[in-house]
């Protein structure tokens, strides 16, 4: 079943066309990847899907019964997406109070593999990886159906990236979440997603099942993206 339908979406900022006739859909329960370079429009599209901004043309159709509390976002930069003057408990309680829900903060922290004692800490006391865990905990606290992850690991070290991606996979499985993952790194998408759309210059240039896109990229830009990934030396 389709959870989100993106139909012929275009977005202009002044005369600058950031999105050009983008269409695809996200099925319920799937993990969908959106890949492209800086300026390709992937974050703008994410913001439109989150209803943070409106498209200039086109529309987004959400499945029936889908309410504001059902879609949440995890931001790219764990250093600026947490309020430095709130401690972890306050950060996590804010969305709960907005949606009139109650939850054990300790348990919520455990679900992102942090000790309950983190509730009293402030963002500056946390590492980048820990902050991103708090960002995830905040997003899943009100039990959404859909999670948009906008470059969730691009500012983290390699080993922390692997930990965070594993955590997202685990949470996704346990909560049955639908995920839209935005990344410029194809490896991250490959690790997480079943389908992928490749964006360039505001357009979707290729879309398909991840294995097929990886094995037989049709668009020259997709090929270039794949070839650009640095690799480890071959085993000798």
């Amino acid at each position: 079943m389709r959870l989100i339908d993106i139909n012929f979406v275009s977005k202009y900022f002044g005369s600058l066309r950031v999105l050009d006739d983008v269409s695809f859909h996200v099925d319920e329960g799937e993990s969908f990847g959106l890949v492209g370079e800086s300026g390709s429009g992937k974050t703008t599209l994410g913001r439109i899907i989150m209803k943070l901004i409106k498209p200039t043309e086109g529309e987004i159709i959400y499945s029936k019964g889908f309410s504001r509390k059902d879609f949440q976002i995890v931001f790219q930069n764990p250093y600026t997406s947490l309020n430095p003057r709130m401690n972890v408990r306050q950060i996590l309680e804010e969305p709960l109070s907005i949606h009139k829900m109650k939850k054990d903060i300790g348990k919520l922290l455990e679900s992102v593999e942090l000790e309950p004692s983190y509730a009293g800490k402030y963002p500056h006391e946390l590492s980048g990886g820990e902050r991103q865990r708090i960002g995830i905990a905040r997003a899943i606290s009100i039990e959404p159906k859909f999670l948009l992850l906008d470059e969730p690991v691009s500012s983290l070290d390699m080993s922390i990236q692997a930990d965070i991606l594993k955590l997202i996979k685990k949470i996704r499985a346990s909560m049955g979440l639908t995920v839209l993952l935005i990344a410029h790194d194809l490896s991250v998408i490959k690790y997480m997603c079943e389908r992928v759309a490749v964006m360039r210059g505001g357009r979707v240039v290729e879309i398909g099942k991840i294995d097929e896109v990886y094995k037989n990229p049709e668009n020259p830009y997709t090929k270039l993206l794949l070839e650009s990934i640095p690799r480890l030396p071959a085993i000798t």
Partner: protein
Amino acid sequence: MSKLLELKKLSVHYQNNKDIVKAVTNVDMVINEGEVVGLLGESGCGKSTLALSILRLIDPPGKIYGEILWGGNNLLNIPEQNMQRIRGAEISMIFQDPFSTLNPVFKVGEQIAEVFRVHKGSSRREAWKKAVEIMDKVHIKDPADRAKDYPHQFSGGMKQRVAVAMSYSLSPRLLIADEPTTALDVTMQKAILEVLKELKTTMLFISHNIAIISSVCDRVYVMQAGRIIEEGTPAEISNDPKNPYTAKLVNSYKEISI
């Protein structure tokens, strides 16, 4: 191969009244002429501090201990005036963030030309000509026109090309590249790595990404918590890591790579 730079028991400590923070501890390192040496480690392990200490750019209360041997001299013992001649001309550095490397209120060409005017005493006209030439060398299209642009008219990748051009402008004997591609997209990353390889300079290449390090370096040092814990060729490090921390870095890469 002759030794170009040798670090002997290099340490960097930050001290206040109560505590000492040891950012770098007893690092021994050799960079030979013509070699591209990698420094692999995660955020906070001390790799940038190590790079800055080679150029003596550690601000007080930070202190550098040990020896930095460069052309027979210990850089820690020479006067600041001489050090200024070495910075940029003999050892130069490319920083991680191309957005803050360039001054937003000066034309790109002017900023590169300044290097020639300060270090070589070139005239304005001559320095500008050299700036255009070096922009061409890092494959900036229409360098004569682009030199007149301001940094905000350049993309991230183009700015990093300018930063590479600037650091290479005086043909330094050693180039220190501190995470030069981390802020860039994969396609731009590849392009910058190719430009760096083309320069064929001796280089200390710093990164947290083992695959990027492997694609450019002849030899790699692995750093953890201020110490060098392993050294080897990229193939040795990624196929047969001796230290458990190195193994963890390699595995976490393999897990999410394709």
